[in-house]
């Protein structure tokens, strides 16, 4: 933290130095950014930088400034249509579109921030160039600058396009949705017909209140707990299932190893959304499993022991809470184990043989070898990916959404908040945006999911990035 503050301080001090001590060319770069380069003979570079400056001002004053100014209110003029009775044409007033204001405002501000950073570093670069010229050192020609872009500064070439993409697809949308969490953008405030505006922490308060009309508090806690439980069960069941299966198949006593492996791997070839929809239909209330179970008398047996209520003629595999919770975990095992088996196979093959051999000679049993040698090794290698898998399961949209798309909740409290018992936070979020246009609550939930994922990642953060292990390995 301190290091960061120091770096920030130096950043501005250097800028100040450049402004105070620079010569006329450098100083005039404050207005025309390319001037300093022209002073040192780097004409093309100077023109490019100035062109960028002009572009920025053109975009800001021609387009985004208008939106940035309205960001404070998100628009005040509501759309109104007036019908001119003599000509029978509709005229629409010059209305504000809150959505457009927010989106373009954010883009405009991002642009501004980037420009300011560029501006400051440009001053420093110009000053450094001036000093070099004074010291009579070699100054790069434009051609040499270009060459530098595939050599010493190759990372700039490499990272420019991908970062632009990330800006477009990740950063702008995320900032936008975070802002939405503090507005009242929902079904009743939809642009362009209506305006929405800032409401502060109102939505966060709503998420923890539960009254007779607002049930978000009640539903949120339940869905949060189920999400965490699901992520835990789904991660560990497929993880251990995969390792055990891989171990079982790779065992010396197993014949036709390749055949077994292939049989399990076949299931991966069919896209997940197809198998999930298919399995969902198989376990449907009037699906094939139910009719076969009915014929075999399993349904009536389950009714006798009380697992299925007497009023139903089928087993509610995916349509009643409890049953459905268990089923999605089981089906997820079916989906996930082959993948896990595959990667575990690779890792198991890399376990140093000598360790196992010597353990065997010392009289260790199979179970001891598994728990004392195989598992610690597996955990060491796959530890970080286990946490990634946990986070992926918190966000496991497909399994839940595709399996329970026909699920109808009978709990009024859930129904009031447009949720079902089976929902994860992420599917709830999706339903809220896609079916009910309740963007404000969806954004709040999204922020909660982010916080959960962030906490999980922080736990493993030090292991993933910190330490200079990457240097050691090279």
């Amino acid at each position, binding site marked *: 933290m301190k290091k960061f503050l120091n770096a920030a301080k130096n950043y501005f001090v250097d800028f100040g130095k450049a402004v105070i001590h620079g010569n006329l060319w450098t100083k005039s770069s404050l207005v025309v950014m390319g001037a300093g380069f022209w002073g040192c003979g780097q004409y093309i570079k100077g023109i490019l930088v100035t062109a960028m400056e002009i572009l920025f001002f053109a975009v800001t004053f021609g387009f985004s400034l208008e939106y940035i100014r309205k960001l404070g209110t998100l628009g005040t003029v509501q759309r109104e249509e007036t019908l001119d009775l003599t000509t029978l044409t509709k005229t629409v007033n010059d209305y504000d579109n809150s959505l457009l204001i927010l*989106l*373009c405002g954010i883009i405009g501000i991002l642009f501004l921030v980037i420009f300011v950073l560029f501006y400051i570093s440009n001053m420093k670069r110009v000053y450094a160039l001036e000093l070099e010229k004074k010291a009579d050192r070699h100054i790069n020609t434009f051609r040499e600058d270009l060459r530098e872009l*595939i*050599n010493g500064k*190759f*990372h700039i070439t*490499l*990272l420019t396009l*991908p970062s*632009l*993409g*990330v800006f477009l*697809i990740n*950063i*702008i*949308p*995320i900032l*936008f*949705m975070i802002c939405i969490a503090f507005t009242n953008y929902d079904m009743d405030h939809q642009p362009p017909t209506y305006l929405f505006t800032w409401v502060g922490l109102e939505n966060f308060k709503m998420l923890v209140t539960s009254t007779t009309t607002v049930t978000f508090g009640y539903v949120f806690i339940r869905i949060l707990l189920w999400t965490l439980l699901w992520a835990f069960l789904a991660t560990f069941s497929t993880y251990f299932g995969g390792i055990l*299966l891989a171990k*079982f198949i790779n065992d010396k*006593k*197993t014949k036709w190893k390749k055949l*077994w492996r292939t049989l*399990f791997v076949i*299931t991966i070839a*069919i*896209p*997940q*959304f*197809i*198998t999930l*929809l*298919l*399995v969902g*239909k*198989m376990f449907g209330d009037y*699906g*094939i499993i139910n*009719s*076969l179970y009915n014929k075999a008398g399993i349904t009536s047996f389950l009714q006798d022991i009380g697992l299925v209520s007497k009023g139903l003629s089928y087993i509610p595999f995916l349509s009643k809470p409890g049953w459905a919770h268990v089923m999605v975990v089981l089906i997820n095992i079916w989906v996930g184990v082959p993948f896990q088996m595959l990667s575990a196979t690779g*890792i198991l093959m890399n376990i140093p043989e000598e360790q196992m051999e010597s353990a065997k000679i010392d009289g260790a049993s199979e179970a001891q070898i598994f728990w004392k040698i195989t598992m610690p090794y597996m955990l060491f*290698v796959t530890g970080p*990916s286990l946490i990634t898998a946990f*986070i992926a399961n918190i*966000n496991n949209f497909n399994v839940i959404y595709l399996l329970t798309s026909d699920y109808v909740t009978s709990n009024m409290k859930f129904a009031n908040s447009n949720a079902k018992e089976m929902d994860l936070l*992420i599917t709830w*979020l*999706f339903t809220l*945006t896609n079916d009910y246009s309740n963007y404000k609550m969806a954004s709040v939930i999204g*922020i909660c999911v*982010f916080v959960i*994922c*962030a906490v999980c*990642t922080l736990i493993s*953060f030090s292991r993933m990035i910190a330490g200079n*292990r*990457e240097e050691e*390995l*090279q």
Partner: protein
Amino acid sequence: MKKTLGMIMRHLFLAVLALIWLIPVVWLFVTSLSAYKGINTMHFFPTKWSMDNYAQLFFRPDTVANFPAWFKNSMLIGVFSCMISTIFVLMVAYAMSCMRFQGRKALMSFAIILGMFPGVLSMIAIYFVMKLIGLSNSLTGLVVIYSAGSGLGYLICKGFFDTIPASLRESAKLEGASELTIFTKIVIPLSKPIIVYTVINSFLSPWMDFVMAKLMIRSKDPADWTVAMGLFNLVQRTLVGNYFSVFCAGGIIVAIPISVLFVIMQRFYVEGITGGAVKG
């Protein structure tokens, strides 16, 4: 005696497991060959066999099922976003793994933080952004969505690049090679497994995704849809009675390119994943 019994039990156990894992796949296959169009809930195997579902899929596109168009759309999206994402991932991974520059660690932490935001959260916002730049409701827009952010998924590839000895790059540098030459002539040829892994992953994810496609493509004309969207539509309540076995046939056809890719990558898959996983 006890030993052979153990052997039999072991293989019997595996056989039962394999059976459980294969039942849905077999059901998918046999239903795709059924003459009955809806869900056969009474029998596992169809009562009447026919190849008609495949014929309908390919040669008789109608107002709800236009498989040839879906296949073409998905193929285009898959191929283009695969090319762009692979290039992006390799570029970012090289910069992060093989180069040392100011702010590298900060960028890496930033990428991890960005990765923690749930994708579903930004989906709707992405739709608004795409609408703003006029790319919503188009295949180009989908290609942009699938590939633009792919640079963030560089970690596994970086893990692989980290294992390439730095001495190789240094000696090339001493001989006067530029970073570009090292990247294209040394690092890339050495990274075949991870490239295959990246290519296949980035081809498959748009191929299988349907949520994003459903959100982006608002067209009601099935000819504009992707395979995933179209097949998903076929099992909705109003259509499932007439199109379920067609859906199954589509599922089998979709599995073919994936299986082919899988056979190619099987050799590399394990290598690629573990190569990267060791370093996280």
